[in-house]
């Protein structure tokens, strides 16, 4: 009997059982209920589809999908699986095509995913071919509904998913638009293999508590510290999204528990030989040096000083996942601005000064799961609620995430 079948998870979200990270049935239900359920999955940036015929291939959970700019200029999406005998339709990461031909038997589709041609449908020299009743209109890959918010493209297989803006809620939309205010351009891609279940990365992202404790670099250079002004925003509907932010300390820094506590993470004496990496500009004019925004189930929008990126985490089996980083700037950035973003990209990614540790800490949890039996995580920092608050000494965003997860998974 699998853990899911025996469902050993008490009420509430201040306790989370470790078996969620190591159970086949949980993973199967996540594909059906979370990724293919009434949620919106990040696909790519609209900037990656500039011209008609441009397409990108990605995944909705484990399902391969194609996102394309149709010849009529609209953005379309559908499952990347031929309606005949299931071959991948596009096997490159991106490309441009007027139509899509399956390599196996040459069935062809338009960029909306409609089946337009079946090779030898009428047979050859009157022999073979498809039966007369075969109707092309009945055969096509599963379509995706596409949502677009500020040039970030999302997709869903579900009719039950609310409109994207309603799904996100006004608080999140505002914070997305703060960053997506102008057309963007991609500056670089990176994949990172994570040695843990995908949800452990989302826990890490939604955990403002760990930032200044796990990431020394952060605190040492006051890029972020818990005693800096900052907080978290959770949408009123509590649909599992959140924003975590912090800003420059204006005026004199007042002592706090933070400074009194003895922390591994504090090394006041530590200085850079070449501090040019920190020469950022307050391009948003609001003094916010860090904004991490997460959308349920697996999307992250990052602003760390001038380093901008979207991230997406996907399961690779139970104990591994893949994190995709798409670094971007604004289409109208000048060379100098691009150089700033390039240097600050050293802060993030798999080698990033302030994100490096996030690559392994999920693995540290994953390694304890096999022996954990029915043990559970304790998520009580900041109490039991899951509301917006102006402190980051809280795990409220995690509670919001798990609340949504339980609803959608029905556990």
């Amino acid at each position, binding site marked *: 009997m699998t853990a899911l079948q025996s469902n050993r998870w008490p009420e509430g979200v201040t306790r989370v059982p470790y078996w969620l990270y190591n159970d086949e049935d949980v993973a199967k239900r996540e594909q059906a209920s979370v990724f293919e359920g009434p949620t919106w999955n990040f696909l790519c940036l609209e900037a990656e589809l500039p011209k008609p015929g441009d397409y990108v291939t990605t995944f909705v959970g484990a399902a391969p999908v194609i996102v394309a700019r149709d010849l009529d200029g609209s953005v379309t999406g559908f499952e990347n699986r031929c309606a005949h005998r299931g071959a991948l339709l596009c096997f490159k990461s991106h490309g441009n095509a007027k139509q899509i031909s399956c390599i196996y038997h040459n069935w062809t589709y338009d960029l909306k995913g409609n089946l337009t041609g079946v090779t030898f449908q009428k047979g050859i020299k009157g022999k073979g071919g498809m039966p007369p009743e075969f109707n092309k209109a009945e055969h096509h890959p599963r379509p995706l509904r596409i949502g677009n918010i500020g040039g970030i493209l999302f997709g869903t297989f579900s009719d039950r998913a609310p409109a994207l803006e309603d799904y996100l809620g006004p608080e999140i939309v505002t914070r997305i638009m703060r960053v997506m205010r102008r057309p963007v351009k991609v500056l670089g891609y990176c994949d990172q293999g994570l040695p843990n279940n995908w949800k452990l990365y989302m826990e890490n992202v939604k955990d403002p508590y760990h930032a200044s404790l796990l990431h020394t670099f952060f605190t040492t250079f006051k890029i972020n510290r818990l005693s800096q002004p900052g907080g978290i925003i959770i949408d009123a509907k509590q649909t599992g999204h959140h924003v975590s932010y912090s800003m420059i300390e204006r005026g004199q820094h007042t002592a706090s528990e933070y400074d009194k506590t003895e922390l591994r993470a504090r090394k006041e004496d530590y200085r850079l*030989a070449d501090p040019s990496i920190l020469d950022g500009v307050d391009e948003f004019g609001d003094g916010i040096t860090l904004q991490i925004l997460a959308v349920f189930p697996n999307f992250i929008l990052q602003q760390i000083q001038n380093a901008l990126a979207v991230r997406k985490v996907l399961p690779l089996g139970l104990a591994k996942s893949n994190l995709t980083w798409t670094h971007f700037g604004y289409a109208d950035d000048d060379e100098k601005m691009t150089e700033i973003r390039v240097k600050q990209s050293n802060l993030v990614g798999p080698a990033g000064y302030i994100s490096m540790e996030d690559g*392994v800490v999920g693995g540290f949890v994953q390694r304890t799961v096999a022996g954990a039996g029915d043990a559970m995580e304790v998520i009580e920092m900041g109490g039991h609620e899951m509301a917006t608050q102006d402190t980051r000494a809280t795990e409220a965003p995690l509670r919001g995430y798990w609340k949504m997860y339980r609803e959608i998974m029905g556990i």
Partner: protein
Amino acid sequence: MNTTTQIEVEALLARYVHCIDDGKLEEWPGFFADPCKYLITSAENHERNLPVGIFIATSRGMLQDRVSALREANIYEPQRYRHIVSSVLITADSGGAVTAQANFQVIRIMHDGTMDLFCTGKYADRIVGTGDARTYAEKLVILDNKRIDTLLAIPL
């Protein structure tokens, strides 16, 4: 071809990889000119002319900061690299600057003994100076694999 240059460039690379694999990271910035360009990126980014890769340094100071961050600030599991390099090919040699490329692979060995093929790729180098005093004015570390497992702490 110039036999001596060939052997000196191979020796420079041999010292470079042993420096890293032996964990003598404090000596690593000394292999570079100042200013310099050290960039770790993927072949995909490189071919699409995308400027953001995995790590970049444009001065010895930035290289030193990388080392001190690893020593002082960042948390990662004890691990070591084993560089296997081959086919050092000198593509240009003019006016004190040598351009060379070499194939490499790096195996990462964790403290618990786990051994993984961590990455493969090509070094594209511009080397200045002469004899044993050659340094890298530019070293592009172009990874074939676009996925980095877990994290990249130690330089390549």
